[in-house]
């Protein structure tokens, strides 16, 4: 093996360990009793003690249901809107299309701190403060920019000739969308939907300022509360962290290659 190859392989192996070490030690720690955590190395699994997961579920179960509800709806709404807007911006000619796109896209880079106080004010005024509906609305709106970007980039690959053909057949803008574009959109829907689901499920900032209490709070907020109230109980904390990661992890294990393929084809830019 050439020295450069060897060096490259070494770097990759070191980075693999770096990537996986925190996850691995969380798994082993979550399965240990408190005294085992103190006595044994976090790298080596020593028992299969599931009570930490039971304890974490007691605190996170209901918040995870809340997260699931608003995440599913907000993912659905923002993805569908992103698809329709992506279609309008690539396949339908209108003046200012580029300006409209930039207008939409800016929201993606916005530091949310700079809208946080007005957001809380408006949500309280609308009676949506501390409701799942408020979370759905917030995540849908702030998800539109990135969804539009994803779909716009995907639809750029669909040849215009398909649209012409449909037009000649007498189909209107939205019949063309339903009959030509949507059937070709399975992959972008998977990629964008997955990205959105993960992003919304993982969010903490909107959850912590827009909700309080078990009935509405997202799982991420509940995990922070758990971490704050059981300071040195690392077994419980790791179990909670893994429990929250499970839904997005399963999604990623089964559909991750589509997401990566979408990324590599230029979904982000």
């Amino acid at each position, binding site marked *: 093996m050439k020295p*450069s190859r060897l060096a*490259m392989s070494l*770097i*990759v192996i070191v*980075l693999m360990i770096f990537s996986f*070490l*925190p*996850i691995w030690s969380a798994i082993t720690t979550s399965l240990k009793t408190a005294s085992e955590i*103190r006595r044994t*190395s976090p790298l080596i699994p020593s028992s299969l003690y599931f009570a930490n997961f039971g304890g974490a579920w007691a605190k996170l179960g209901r918040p995870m249901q809340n997260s699931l509800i608003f995440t599913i709806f907000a993912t659905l709404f923002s993805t569908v809107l992103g698809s*329709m807007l992506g279609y309008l911006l690539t*396949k*339908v*000619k*209108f003046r200012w299309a*580029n300006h*409209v796109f930039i207008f*939409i896209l*800016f929201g993606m*880079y*916005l*530091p949310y*701190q*700079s*809208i*946080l*106080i*007005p*957001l809380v*004010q408006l949500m309280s005024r609308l009676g949506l403060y501390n409701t799942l509906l408020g979370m759905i609305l917030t995540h849908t*709106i*702030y998800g*539109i*920019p990135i969804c539009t970007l994803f779909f716009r980039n995907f639809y750029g690959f669909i040849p215009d000739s398909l*649209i*012409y053909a449909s*037009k000649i057949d007498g189909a209107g*803008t*939205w019949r063309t969308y339903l009959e030509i574009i949507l059937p070709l959109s399975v992959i972008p829907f998977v990629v964008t939907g997955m990205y959105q689901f993960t992003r919304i*499920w*993982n969010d*903490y*900032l909107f959850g912590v*300022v827009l909700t309080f209490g078990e009935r509405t709070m997202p799982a*991420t907020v509940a*995990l*922070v509360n758990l971490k704050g109230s059981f300071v040195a109980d690392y077994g419980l*904390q*790791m179990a909670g*962290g*893994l429990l*929250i*990661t499970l839904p*997005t*992890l399963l999604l*990623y294990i089964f559909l991750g290659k589509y997401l*990566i393929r979408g*990324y*590599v*084809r230029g979904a982000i830019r």
Partner: protein
Amino acid sequence: MVKLDINSFFNVVLLTSVLTLLGIFVYGFTGWNIIISLTTWTGLTPTYEIKGLQSYLTALSNPVFLKSFSNNIILLGFFISGSILIGLLLAIALDQMERGAGPLRTFFVLPFTISYVVAGTLWAWMYTPGEGVIDSILGALGLGFLDIGWIANPRLSIYCIILTMIWQFSGYTMIILLAGIKSVPFSQIAAARVDGATSFSLYRHIVIPQIKQPLFIAFAVLFAFGVKTFALIWTLTAGGPGVSSYILSLHMYRTSFASFQFAEGAAIATIMLMLVLVVIVPYLYIMREK
């Protein structure tokens, strides 16, 4: 392209409602936040008495703000360069692999799919002084004297945060750069190989000059993440020890939602927005051209 039928009721409703919602939630709120920053609003009840730049002066004269700002600059510098360096190394390594690159790509992006809150929780255990993961590995290797306190050390806490952020983002950066590397025409790479170029000079002289755009995209995206990052720090160090790992997002949150100094909080948020605009406006301008 088909022409937009502006008489179509549906098109008009769709575009106007989406643009109105974003107009309110993105642009209107940003403007409203700036107005709040110009008022005297302290405490729970809003007072909309315009007092000019008073809250900016209050914010700027607070030592916590200055600490947060300088930490933010340190964070941006090391986080962006670290993520791009590791991302580039990984992209080049995976680009050269004949087999196994697919699963490895998936593997390295995994930390990016984990919530910042979870990342902070996992790394707080990594960095726990004494019995935590890093220290017990060092101890097992006979390097226990290297226990330097990690997040409990006020001089190191911000760098611990940066390392955790690099852990989360280098796989994502790798993907952005890999997309660029894959778009370099194969004929150029083959020609360079025929001319006897080594892998190093091939990447140095042929590939890297052609991925300036992906590098710039990675820079802009990481910059935006670096300014708005909050949950990870909140769970990892909560800004501590003391205020040693405060950055602007934490200071803004505490000022607004714990101390209820909303005018000052809005002023800090506006300064954060300015910081992002310095990079994002040129970025969007360049992206619009293509």
